[in-house]
């Protein structure tokens, strides 16, 4: 009975998830994930954010806060890890001390935060990982992972360039994120895999700009000097795309260079507006997973779920001039 | 014209954290008068003058200028009322030139742009007005201290001041420079300026002052005529008649601790205003106190510090012998190994760790003796410090006190005691009684002679001629980095000065 109810509630949620197949058979565990659950309780959810000082992460916070507000039983606590594994570890430990009912975490780095997640799990607190994973097996070492697939998103961007944007080929550049960070590597490799579809496209330059617009501007300006025929640039996040646009403008090449971003952030500084106003060719949303995470929290805490899907991949949306204006309206 | 004095301070009292620095002091100053304010360190002179110049506010009492009561909330208010103060630590900017310093904060401009030309011209004029001629384009930091003093005076006078407070203005001046300064002061007084003159040098008082007030323990101890004998002034200062200032000599010569024969020091880098020894010949025997006389810039300090290996990189030539053996005094470590110890004239800048305790300062140069196996032995440290405090009669006899809280005289005793603990063969003293009370001076002289009596050789440089004459067995005169004359004990001050300043024009910058 109860189980059916959960299924039905989760149905739209599960439909989104490509990774739902990874669901382990839960017949063996008949107990709910959290003992003190039910619709009448009050629950504290702690979210350990890797670093508030990035527009994308702020966007995640906003979406999570908005989703949590709709559930009267939930109180959301956000802790800023400030881009520092030590700080984030201590915040995770504090959540455990506080005995929050559920923890969401976007780990700044994978293996350093693994022990902290393990301590939380050991204390009986479910941990849902957002956007980035720690080391281990979902469903065992942590409750679930919800996020986008960096490689796939960048690959789609690459395919978009190869098929739609430059079917006749040409020179292409890549602006990488902070070197040695996982998403930077994945997005770089994804994009390069995507453009392979079109042998006439040549990646002539790739430079790290650490996710930062000013560094991206400097780097791309230098690229345009070295390769005046660059036709498109893929920026691994929206901020660097904005920097690339400034560099193109400085070189007088805004019409020649197609700019692609990643993240698809809303707001006046975000990528959706830039595409809608024709500044960029496209940007690819990196979904926050915020609403999905709150849905999962509801299943665990309010509905006493005995199991949840352990990997939920939220697909990307390509934002192109076709849909950007409409999305702006939302 | 009112009959009220130019300045009257009535019942001024001030305490710091429970210590009563001033206990109801009355002080007045007439137009055209040089009023000498004397007192030992800590007697309250500086506090009183800080009240007058608005640096601190009194707890009680009032200040009347021309009979009108005024309150100086800050130094600006005092300046506006015509009170200009020349502090001992000159408030000049070393990295700016003389002209810029004279117009600091009141720069002349033309159309919003600095008018350097006019400032240089006026600066020259102002200096000429007080009888000095100097290059106003020089950086103040490159000037000798004496010249800086003059710049500071010229700067203070520019405020159209009616009351001028001078805190030990002659401390760093040569005798002839001091004479010129006195002439300036008399001239200013003749124009109606009232001057408060603070000094340690009692012998200067009759030369310049019209009236003398002595402070002791935050109260007025008494007034005296400038022509009163020095012993009377000293009795007022110390509160009791002082026996003999200079101790008796032990006499007798023994082995030669130091011999210099045409010694020169070739520094690797030239330094402005630094006169390396350029041919010094002298001897110091065990048990002997030898004086170094000379005008400013004659190279006294430089000779002592290069002997101590602190003259920067360079090489000696000529003969330098310690205990009859040639010595290579090119580093402090080498000089200390050879048995030398040095007491700098810059007590605060190079002698003491002011925030550290007396005890820790005392053992600073003999740390090896109190730290076997690199571990500090608190017991040995306390014993050694205790001995030194007792031997030099440091007051208060508390090794835990911060040395900066002691009076100048006691600080100087600590510096001396610290070097004596190292049991040197040859003690180099640079201005051993600068900024020290008369009372403490006598004790320091006694200690120096006692050390000599124990067989230590002492070489002492001083700009106070009476001190050299009273203390030393022989006096060597330096000029332009060379030894030019030698006088036995009991020589006439006039003769020594003559030798020191003989060809001043040729050596002076």
């Amino acid at each position, binding site marked *: 009975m109860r189980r059916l109810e959960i299924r039905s509630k989760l149905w739209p949620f599960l439909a989104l998830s490509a990774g739902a197949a990874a669901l382990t058979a839960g017949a063996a565990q008949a107990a709910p994930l959290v003992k003190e659950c039910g619709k009448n309780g009050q629950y504290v959810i702690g979210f350990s954010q890797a670093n508030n000082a990035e527009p994308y992460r702020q966007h995640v916070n906003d979406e999570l806060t908005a989703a949590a507000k709709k559930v009267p039983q939930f109180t959301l*606590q*956000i802790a*800023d890890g*400030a*881009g*520092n*594994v*030590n*700080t984030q*570890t*201590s915040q995770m*430990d*504090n959540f*455990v*001390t*506080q005995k929050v009912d559920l923890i969401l975490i976007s780990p700044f*780095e994978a*293996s*350093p935060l693994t*022990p902290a997640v393990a301590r939380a799990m050991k204390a009986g607190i479910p941990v849902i990982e957002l956007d980035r994973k720690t080391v281990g097996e979902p469903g065992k070492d942590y409750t679930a992972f919800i996020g986008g697939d960096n490689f796939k998103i960048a690959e789609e961007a690459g395919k978009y360039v190869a098929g739609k944007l430059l079917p006749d080929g040409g020179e292409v550049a890549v602006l990488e994120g902070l070197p*040695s960070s996982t998403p930077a*590597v994945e997005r770089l490799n994804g994009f390069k895999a995507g453009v392979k579809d079109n042998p006439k496209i040549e990646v002539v330059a790739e430079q790290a700009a650490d996710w930062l617009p000013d560094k991206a501007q400097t780097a791309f300006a230098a690229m345009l000097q070295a390769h005046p025929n660059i036709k498109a640039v893929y920026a691994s996040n929206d901020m660097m795309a904005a920097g690339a646009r400034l560099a193109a403008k400085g070189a007088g090449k805004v019409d020649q260079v197609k700019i692609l971003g990643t993240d698809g952030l809303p707001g006046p500084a975000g990528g959706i507006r830039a595409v809608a106003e024709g500044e960029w060719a496209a940007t690819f949303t990196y979904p926050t997973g915020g609403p999905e995470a709150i849905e999962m929290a509801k299943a665990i805490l309010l509905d006493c779920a005995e199991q949840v899907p352990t990997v939920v991949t939220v697909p990307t949306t390509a934002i192109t001039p076709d849909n950007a204006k409409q999305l702006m309206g939302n | 014209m009112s009959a009220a004095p130019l300045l009257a301070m009535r019942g001024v009292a001030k305490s*710091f*954290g*429970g*210590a009563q620095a001033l206990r109801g002091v009355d002080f007045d100053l007439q137009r055209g008068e040089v009023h000498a304010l004397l007192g030992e*360190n*800590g007697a309250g002179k500086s506090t009183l003058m800080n009240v007058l110049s608005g640096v601190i506010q009194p707890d009680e009492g009032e200040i009347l200028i021309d009979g009108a009561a005024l309150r100086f909330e800050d130094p600006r208010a005092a300046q506006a009322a015509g009170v200009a103060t020349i502090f001992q630590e000159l408030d000049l900017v070393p990295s700016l030139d003389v002209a810029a310093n004279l117009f600091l904060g009141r720069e002349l401009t033309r159309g919003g742009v600095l008018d350097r030309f006019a400032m240089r011209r006026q600066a020259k004029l102002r200096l000429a007005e007080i009888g000095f001629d100097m290059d106003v384009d020089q950086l103040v930091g490159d000037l000798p201290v004496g010249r800086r003093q003059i710049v500071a005076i010229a700067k203070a006078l520019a405020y159209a001041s009616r009351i001028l407070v001078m805190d030990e203005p002659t401390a760093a001046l040569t005798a002839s420079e001091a004479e010129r300064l006195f002439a300036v002061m008399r001239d200013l007084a003749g124009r109606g300026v009232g001057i408060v003159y603070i000094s340690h040098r009692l012998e200067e008082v009759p030369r310049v002052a019209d009236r003398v007030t002595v402070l002791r*323990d935050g109260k007025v101890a008494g007034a005296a005529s400038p022509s009163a004998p020095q012993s009377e002034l000293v009795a007022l200062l110390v509160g009791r008649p002082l026996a003999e200032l200079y101790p008796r000599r032990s006499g007798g010569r023994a082995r030669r601790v130091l011999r210099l024969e045409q010694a020169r020091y070739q520094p690797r880098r030239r330094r402005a205003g630094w006169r390396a020894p350029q041919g010094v010949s002298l001897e110091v025997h065990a048990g002997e106190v030898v004086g170094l006389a000379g005008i400013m810039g004659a190279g006294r300090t430089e000779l002592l510090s290069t002997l*101590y290996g602190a003259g920067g990189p360079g090489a000696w030539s000529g003969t330098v012998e310690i205990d009859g053996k040639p010595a290579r005094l090119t580093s*402090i*470590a080498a000089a*200390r190994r050879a048995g030398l110890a040095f007491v*700098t004239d*810059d007590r605060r*800048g*190079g*002698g003491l*760790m*002011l*925030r*550290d*305790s007396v005890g*820790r300062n005392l053992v*600073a140069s003999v*740390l*090896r003796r109190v*730290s076997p196996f*690199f*571990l*500090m032995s608190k017991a040995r440290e306390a014993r050694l410090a205790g001995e030194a405090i007792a031997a030099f009669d440091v*007051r*208060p006899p*508390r090794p*835990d*006190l*911060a040395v*900066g*809280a002691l*009076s100048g005289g006691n600080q100087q005793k600590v510096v001396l005691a610290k070097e004596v603990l190292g049991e040197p063969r040859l003690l180099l003293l640079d201005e051993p009684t600068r900024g020290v009370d008369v009372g403490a001076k006598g004790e320091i002289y006694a200690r120096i002679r006692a050390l000599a009596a124990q067989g230590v050789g002492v070489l002492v440089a001083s700009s106070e001629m009476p001190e050299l004459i009273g203390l030393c067995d022989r006096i060597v005169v330096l000029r332009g980095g060379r030894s030019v004359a030698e006088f036995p004990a009991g020589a006439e001050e006039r003769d020594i000065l003559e030798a020191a300043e003989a060809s001043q024009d040729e050596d002076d910058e």
Partner: protein
Amino acid sequence: MNDAATALKSAPARPAPRRLDFFAVAVRFQSVIGLILVAIGGVIFSPRRHGSILFLAPDNIANIVRAISETGIIAVGMTFVIITAGIDLSVGALLSLSSVLTATIMTTWGWGLVPTLLFVLICGAAFGATQGVISTKFRLEPFIVTLAGLQTARGLALVISGNQYINISYGDGPGLAPPIFSVLGDRLFNNTVPVATLVFVVVAIVATFVLNLTRFGRYVFAVGGNERAARLSGMPVTLVKISVYAITGLVSAIAGVVHAGQFNFGSANDGTGYELTAIAAVVIGGTSLFGGSGSMIGTVAGAVMLGALANVLQLNNINAALQLLATGAIIVLAAVLQSLVRRREGLGR
């Protein structure tokens, strides 16, 4: 140091009776008092669970002292440098370099635990000493030299790590680190005492001993108190200055090893801003940036206080911006107290 307090007990000129000057005592122990105040605030404002005070829960105390162990270790070394009136900005970058080195050596080069640690610690000390040599030899401001050191260390870390972060996996065999190394991330004694904190405690005890009870410690105070006087007293001033930078290099390397062990990785991006946290702890601890005075206990209390403050605020779900504001205010307060002391001692207006 102890003299700040004693100095104030006496009037400028004459021996004063031994009175307790509360102001001086308060400044001397400012960080300890600050820590007590934060603790009291923590107890008052702490959320409670089943009537027990969350802030005082053993788990929570362990969280606090674990979180500050790395910056605490660095702050202890920084105290030496600051007492000599110097500064070392390279510590955070050196921590990162050391963590990268540790991870690389153990996983790629396959060295054993002891040689690895020795090598990393020697590298750290040598890096620091090199900065000291450059600064003394060419008479450069330590600020500039260590700023360059910061960049150099980060660059080296990026080169050595090949722009990747290096995971440490444990076990026997090639590419695996000795399992004992992971103990740095554990908690001992019935899962209560973090090993990282134990390292901090040991480093702090050794440093307190060196600073207060050895000849070298005395040299450090003297060089900062009055460099010229120290030189004229025959102290090896240059050697002392080089040594204090070797010490910060060494403690940064220790912190880097602890970092690698706690988080099982080495990264060229870690330790950013640690130099500022460490300097803040030292200053709050009552050590004067002018040199010549300072206390190791103060530094430790300052570091713990900053950690406790962050913890109290997070337990109450107060946001990060306010933590920064509070830290800033405390640093200013500490600096103002310092300057009041100097003024009362008559050292500078």
